[in-house]
């Protein structure tokens, strides 16, 4: 009896403590997979992407178990590009801790999971494509504490999730403004949120949109909480791929670019078939009416058409997951197109 129970716990313990790192271990010791990621994905019949364990707006299953969110649709765009079917994508919920080893080891093909593009990560076995969301790191605090900016936070305790860049951010702002912030670090998102809403911490730190998502879905009364930036700096949340497969990097990059370019061209899910008859040579090449763009990166020439036909453009994707069409009602802000004063810069389909 003793042996059995403690054996079961040992298994649970191991699983929790080292899951992510074990992935790296296992994968590092097995022989490298021959062939390209594209071949492997085609042979498998689906793209495998990382997802969060439920950040509404970015990646979370809905009440029917269908995955939704900006990161999810970024992955579906690749599924459309490769298979012309947005449902040929599988989502693996991974903790902040597990996600990078899982990508390095080949458990997943793409890591679109609110991952901040940093030099340390870039230099360590993964490559970043182009940002799909610009964001500041923020603090969520109860309004009744009367704090609206970082400088007022002296002595506060902050709930932090491990596996993110936010632990360092807390240290940085605490040092810069001499705030003496203390942290309580959690591995599980649910424990983190429970600790914050029960009042164990004064503040919760993570990406502002994720905070908005937490506030909208978990707070008893969302109006009682305030979100403000932790630093004056922005983060670029960027889908990443494994280092060493340039073709796959191109495919993921341009599948996302199809979404922003479509918005720039004024192409929507509804009007795309009319746009096929457009006289603008750039639009004609984008939609594959005039060939060459798709085959350049090993895809069907109509891949951009297929993506927009099935998912809409970036604005539509944003709106239904994060913007006015969603419960979060997040302002597009920096995520507007360059032309509209944002940072989203559609690259040229030439």
């Amino acid at each position: 009896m003793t042996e059995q129970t403690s054996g079961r716990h040992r298994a649970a313990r191991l699983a929790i403590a080292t899951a992510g790192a074990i992935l790296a271990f296992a994968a590092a010791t097995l022989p490298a997979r021959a062939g390209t990621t594209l071949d492997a994905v085609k042979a498998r019949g689906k793209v495998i992407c990382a997802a969060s364990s439920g950040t509404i707006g970015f990646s979370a299953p809905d009440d029917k178990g269908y995955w939704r969110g900006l990161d999810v649709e970024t992955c579906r765009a690749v599924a459309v590009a490769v298979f012309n079917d947005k449902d040929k994508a599988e989502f693996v919920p991974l903790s902040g801790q597990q996600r990078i080893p899982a990508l390095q080891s080949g458990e997943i093909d793409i890591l679109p999971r609110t991952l901040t593009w940093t030099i340390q990560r870039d230099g360590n076995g993964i490559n970043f494509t182009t940002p799909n969301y610009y964001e500041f790191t923020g603090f969520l605090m109860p309004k009744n504490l009367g704090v609206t900016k970082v400088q007022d936070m002296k002595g506060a305790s902050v709930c932090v999730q491990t596996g993110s860049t936010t632990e360092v951010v807390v240290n940085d702002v605490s040092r810069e403004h001499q705030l003496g912030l203390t942290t309580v670090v959690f591995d599980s998102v649910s424990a983190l949120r429970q600790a914050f809403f029960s009042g164990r911490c004064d503040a919760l730190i993570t990406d502002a949109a994720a905070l908005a998502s937490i506030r909208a879905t978990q707070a008893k009364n969302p109006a009682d909480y305030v979100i403000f930036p932790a630093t004056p700096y922005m983060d670029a949340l960027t889908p990443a791929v494994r280092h060493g497969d340039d073709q796959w990097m191109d495919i993921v990059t341009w599948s996302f670019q199809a979404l922003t370019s479509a918005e720039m061209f004024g192409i929507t899910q509804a009007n795309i078939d009319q746009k096929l008859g457009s006289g603008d040579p750039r639009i004609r090449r984008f939609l594959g009416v005039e060939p060459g763009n798709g085959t350049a990166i090993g895809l069907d020439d109509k891949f951009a058409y297929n993506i927009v036909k099935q998912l809409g453009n970036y604005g539509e994707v944003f709106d239904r997951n994060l913007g006015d069409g969603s419960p979060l009602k997040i302002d597009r802000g920096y995520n507007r197109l360059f032309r509209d004063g944002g940072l989203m810069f559609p690259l040229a389909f030439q």
Partner: protein
Amino acid sequence: MLAALWDSPRLRAWAGQALLLLLFVGTLVWLAANTVENLAVRSIRVGFDFLARPANFPISESVVPYSTMDSFAWAYVVGIGNTLMISAMAILSATLLGLFVGLARRAKHPMLSGVAGVFVTTVRNTPLIVQLLFWYALVTTALPAPRNALHPLPGVYLSQRGLYLPGIEWSGNGWGFAAGAAAILVAAAVLARRRRRQGRTAPALPAIGAAAAVLALAWATGIGVAASLPELRGFNFSGGMRLSPEFAALMVGLVLYTAAFIGEIIRGGIDAVGRGQWEAGRALGLSERQTLMRIVMPQALRVIIPPLTTQYLSTVKNSTLALAVGFPELGLVIGTVINQTGQALESIAILLAVYLTIGAAVSLLMNWCNARTALVTR
């Protein structure tokens, strides 16, 4: 000739062993070569040079001094210190509580044995991680916010942020003083033991000498002691001693869980001693308690110690579950380090080495205890 060789059982046994060894070593070499190649192909950093870089992440509580400017290596030391502290405290408390539970299970009073039985059944049959989350949720939801902290005694505050008590603040060379004082106390204890063995009079003499020496050392190292009372400043209390909710939840969870197992081990050990021993004790006119402590327990220890060793080892490893409730033991610190540096292989190797060392030390100590209590046949 060949047939003779083939028929030789010794040679065949040797050949079998050699083949197995070759396979084993070959597999290791194959795995190592793959690892090296894969790491290079994926351009993943390797090596331990990150250890000297500044850690840059906060650790909420530690037994050794830590600031975010310290190195990653020191962050590991902080994690190891916390793991050792929580393991030692959990093992000691769980053993005492376990002894009580074990005896209560054998008590004649139906109420006492009933309660102990329910305790063991409940605690042993639910997962530890669930219990930890339960205690943590209880601490953080049942207690008031720091502004409305319970204030039963002057200088004592109980809130969601933990238990704050009046503390002492050291000034001067605290570590030097602590080390010197420890050395003096050990020397005095050895001396006192020798004097007692020799049957010398005035057994208090070494104690008085030690007290004088410690005072002299305090004066020499310029150590100062001041009382420090916790007070509410801004969001939290500062000053005084603090018992965090994370530590409390982990401690309560680990101790109760381990005590339930230890209680059963001790009960089993006592039951394993024949009833005749109790009757013999009674016949000699010994009280129940004397019989238990002087006759039954020494014999029961032989049965108790081997499973107890396993239980202690489990407790050390169970402390890694602290990451569910946010207590920064080694596992949680390493998780953060892996995330900051991306060097999972190195960090996990360190983690394994540390737990292996702690585990081996606990085993050696318990084996030594076992050897001392084992039946000596002459």
